[in-house]
């Protein structure tokens, strides 16, 4: 007998008496106001950086950040990078990227998370090999909490979908918080509506 059938037969023989599957409520009542404010409060707690929209030129704060940067890869039309993302190169080729700029698929107010998939990233390692990640988020794309987030269509259609909540972090040595464990050293968000 194959291991598959051995395991499935053993599970069948040993499974406990059936229990019903409960419905999961959305728990959103009373928390649907000021989603951007709630989002930023949670995001900052997780080590995220909030960028303020510039007067007249909304992406002015981005330009200021990019001034001193080396390799910049932009996946958004609002601002240009220094290098186009070549989708045919291996994922490891992005190791020299200083700053990556992408737009979030959506955000989650409860946790301050943003969702990214291969559609936004082009190459998935862009969000980890870059030293810094800047994300544009349309305030209209923020959902109340994770229950609402998991009803989004992106989960069924994306090969890869990830929530980022602040930058890469570790506290594995004596509980001291370090940003930039293996992934990006900083994660910044600019609340810019889609074009």
């Amino acid at each position, binding site marked *: 007998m194959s291991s598959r059938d051995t395991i499935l037969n053993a599970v069948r023989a040993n499974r406990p008496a059936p229990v019903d599957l409960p419905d999961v409520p959305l728990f959103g009542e009373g928390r649907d106001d000021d989603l951007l404010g709630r989002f930023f409060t949670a995001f900052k707690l997780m080590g995220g950086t909030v960028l303020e929209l510039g007067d007249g030129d909304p992406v002015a704060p981005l330009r200021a950040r990019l001034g001193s940067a080396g390799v910049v890869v932009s996946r958004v039309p609002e601002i240009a990078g220094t290098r186009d993302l070549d989708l045919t190169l291996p994922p490891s080729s992005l190791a020299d990227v200083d700053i990556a700029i992408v737009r979030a698929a959506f955000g989650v107010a409860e946790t301050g998370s943003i969702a990214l998939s291969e559609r936004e990233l082009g190459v998935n390692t862009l969000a*980890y090999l870059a030293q810094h990640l800047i994300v544009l988020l349309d305030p209209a794309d923020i959902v109340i909490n994770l229950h609402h987030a998991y009803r989004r269509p992106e989960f*069924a259609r994306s090969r890869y979908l990830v929530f980022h909540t602040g930058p890469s972090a570790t506290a594995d040595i004596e509980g001291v918080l370090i940003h930039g464990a293996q992934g990006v050293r900083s994660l910044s968000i600019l609340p810019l509506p889609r074009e």
Partner: protein
Amino acid sequence: MNETPHSPGEARPRAAREAQPKGAADPGKGRVDHAEAAKRFIAAPEHLKFHDERLWDIRMKRDRQMHAIPEWEELRRLASAIKDHTLSHLDTYLEQFEAAAKANGVHVHWAKDGAEHNAIVLGLLRDHGAKTLIKSKSMLTEECGMRQALVEAGIEITETDLGERIQQLDAEAPSHIVMPAVHKLRRDVSDVFARTLGTEQGNDDIHYLAESQRMTTRPLILEADAGMTGGNFIIAETGAVVVCTNEGNADLSANTPKLHIVSVGIEKLLPRTSDLGVFIRLLSRSALGSPITQYTSHFRSPRAGAEMHIVLVDNGRSTRLGMPEFWTSLKCIRCGACMNTCPVYRRSGGLSYGFTYAGPIGLVIDPTFDKHKFSSLPFASTLNGSCTNVCPVKINLHEQIYAWRAVMAENHELPFAKKTAMAAAGALLASPRLFRAAIATADQALLSLPRFAQYNALNAWGKGRENPRGAGQTFHAWWAKNRAGKAKAAAPGKQPS
């Protein structure tokens, strides 16, 4: 730290640094001696104090998160019910998951035990000509002894989680399922890195140590032939694998090489994507007291030009499913909350349990792997129930620990001292007259005996703990003096027994 006296003129040696206590000795065919290893942990006061306080701090952070969510208890009830439901239909959900994953272009493998799991992984690596493997933390691969098996077969493995990397470089198992190196102080890490990564001897600046790990690991990530992750949850509805990390190292391991292998236990299934709302909200709040991990990653289908393989591992889980008292331990989501809150775990360190799973959850599942080897573990508990109270999926941990003690007694696995003490206690508790005499004597003894008589080699209750202050009078003596006459008058013919 101990200072030894020196004669004048003699050069003072550098104050001896407290060495990191090592874990339980490999018992071979015998049983793991948790108490012996715990004694050595307690004998290292600096390590003990840090460990105890660090884990209790996380427990308090977890409480603050809990209080911020009005529906917390409802989430625990839902999580428990969803897991009960899934495990009671596990065969059909496994089949649904397999079909969905295959439809996504993912290869699905089944492993009866650890050896078969390791053979499948090695086979995949050989098929792809892969000699180097980067991986994120996976307790399942620890449980299967995968690293040793693959290294012996010539594969070079790099753990990419900082804590797990520290433990790999120190040739030591993880001591905590979420924080593998929580038992180490910064200078222990500094010593390991100086020895293995060539960092500056004696530099125990944490930023320097973490940065050194990043800089030395990144080239290995970029050049690796294959990547591996575990899975916190797998979803029957979509075939997706969900991995939660703070470092982003699972995303690098899965997204950089052309081959992504997932090792996951069959009990990690959830029916629907929408169930994740419940579990992701509970997991990191319970584990670390943070609202969510920095990265929550959903791998449903390989990226263009890459391959994704999932190895579904049984390794005793289907047998555990048929154990009426213990099957609900399969609901565990490996948050480690029970470990952080456990007074015995905090004061004995994870390595003293002698297996991948330590603390209360370890006491419950380790004996299912080897009843004799882990027969002393169910006694490493005060049965205070704190573990049960914090468990996000409501596993009745302390009751299962108690039930294992009964199993061990039936199987004649009780250690000699416990057997002897239990026989004496049995005689005492069976006779009210003897019990009263013993209690009165013990109370007087606790009040009047000098310390050397209470804390010595003959009294196990005086080891590593303070005895309580005895009551001046037993309740029975108080009743006889103050109430017995009145009670007799109120209910003639009835004697208080």
